[in-house]
């Protein structure tokens, strides 16, 4: 092989590489990462308890972290296995068990305030991420069961430990029956 051929080969390869590289560079500059749609779809699968067990301040921040690859999909105990499977399907990954470091799944629960012990300190009101506790200073408080997500975030601020978690009421059982008679 003579020197000319080598030089030509190198030149052609270099020219191709430069031409395509320039095109790719131009393309890369044009492509903005379109992550917001993905975040929306991930967020839609999370249970929205806003409990922070994943160590992110709420479900949406966790969704952002998953979308960017900063967190894995195994951090959501309230969603349990169902959520992990849904996330795995959305992201086309293999499902994996929950990471116990972030807590274990529990059955659905809602907060309940023992109104005889509540002193009306109002400290639980801002702690509730979904404003499901009604009350005013020096008046006893009540949890709106339908809106409570069971996140347990109201427990630590309560000075008299009058909040407890109870099993969530079952969904309406009504189903259509045939009148086959």
């Amino acid at each position, binding site marked *: 092989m003579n020197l000319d051929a080598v030089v030509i080969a190198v030149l052609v390869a270099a020219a191709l590489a430069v031409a395509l590289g320039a095109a790719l560079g131009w393309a890369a500059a044009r492509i903005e990462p379109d992550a917001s749609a993905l975040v929306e779809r991930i967020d839609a699968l999370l249970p929205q308890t806003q409990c922070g067990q994943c160590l992110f301040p709420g479900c949406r921040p966790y969704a952002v972290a998953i979308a960017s690859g900063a967190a894995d999909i195994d951090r959501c105990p309230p969603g349990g296995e169902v959520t992990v499977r849904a996330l795995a399907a959305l992201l086309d990954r293999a499902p994996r068990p929950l990471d116990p470091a972030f807590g274990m799944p529990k059955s659905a629960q809602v907060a309940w305030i023992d109104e005889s012990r509540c002193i009306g300190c109002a400290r639980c009101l801002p702690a509730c991420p*979904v404003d499901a506790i009604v009350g005013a200073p020096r008046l006893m408080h009540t949890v709106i069961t339908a809106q409570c997500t069971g996140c347990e975030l109201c427990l630590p601020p309560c000075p008299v430990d009058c909040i407890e978690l109870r099993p969530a009421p079952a969904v309406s059982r009504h189903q259509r*029956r045939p*009148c086959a008679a």
Partner: protein
Amino acid sequence: MAARSTFPAGLVLDAHKQQACESPIIELPLPTQVVLALDQGAGYSAEPVVAVGDAVAAGALVARADHPFASAVHAPLAGIIVAMETREAAVQGGRSLCIVIDGSGADRIDDSVRPVTDPASLSPEELVQRMRDAGIAGLGGAGFPTPTKLASARELGAHTLVLNGAECEPWICCDDALMRSAADDVVLGALILRRAAGTVRCVIAIEDDKPAAIAAVTKAIERLRDDALTLAVIPAVYPKGAERQLITAVAGVEVPAGGLPADAGVVCQNVATAAAVARWATRGEPMLSRIVTVTGSGVAHPGNVRAAIGTPLAALIAACGGYRGAPLRLIAGGSMTGRALPSDEVGLTKSMNCVLVTTRDDIGSRLGAVELPCIRCGDCASVCPAGLLPQQLLRAALADAHDALRRLGVRDCIDCGLCDYVCPSQIPLADRFRHARRRLLEAEAMANKAAAARERHELHKRRLQQAATAEQRAFDSVRNRARQPGDGSAGDGN
């Protein structure tokens, strides 16, 4: 309106109706005690208007229908209310709040019981309201309040009233017995219902395995000479008597999925409901009694019984000669869709058309079933009256794949049980689908709750932020104010 149906599916089943249907209807005397479930089978409860210890007259209102899907409940006998508590009942979930009345033996009748002088003079709206007060509910098996159905039919402009005398489910023959003995009541009720629903015509549908009932109703219609009241004889194929399937068989239209029969221009009522309406119109009696088939191999003398609502089932069975052999399951309804009850102390409800006492002879096939994996033979699909693919639905149900369940139409399942009936792998498909619907409902409730929580959380965050900004602004203005006067002195110190 959907096109003419292409759903001939269904199956001819062993009827088991001969025994009970031959003997005349037994009129059961009032029992000493009645147990009135406030949920009469439709899934919604009436609100009690009496308290324990109250004395009530026969026909007096004891529970008011606040919810449009609940129906009013009346005392069938004069007596004292001795208990009001949650008990086992023949309803979804197996328990309901019940009012227990001890009969006093007196035949004191409530003042409200007065015949409707001339039903034809009342406006449809008045008719519906009066029927609501009288607690008229569907006697066909679902127990849905008739007035609610009539009102929505009128709103949606239904043109045809179909009276369901198909009675396709095995064992049940109370409608057959009723039509044989009181065809005139059925026809009279049909006219009143037709007026209340605002429909142009009325068709009474009867399966071709009931020649005596067909003859009786034909005669009653002839006496009336009303062109807009006709009889349709349909083939005896299960489940032709299911509301949607009946409408398709009679009117040739399909009820849109997820819609009401009235969306297809049809409203459906049971023949027994029509007879009860006639009884109410002529005697003023609210819905206090019904005819119920008491049958099965576990009953000595199967027959049809007219009994007061709330009569304990044990009394009904006693009226038919008591138990015989070794009864295994007590079923409210027929063998295909009936609900197995835990006890014979529950009271008769308006929706209960049959008390089936089964022995191993009747239900041995189910008890001895050995479940094997699905071999996709497709027999279930060929009999499904809703045109579903149960074999595919089963896979989706086992995998809990909600999208697939919805797409394959688990909600279009009418729970007729035919897929179970024919399955060679003997898989309890209907029950799997019931559970799947339940889980779907739960998942959707969770999703709705999550969406609401997301919204509230966003508002919460915005509110906190606003509060923080306001606080910051207040703090800044205070600081600025504190700073301004001492601009020269304090500022130097910093």
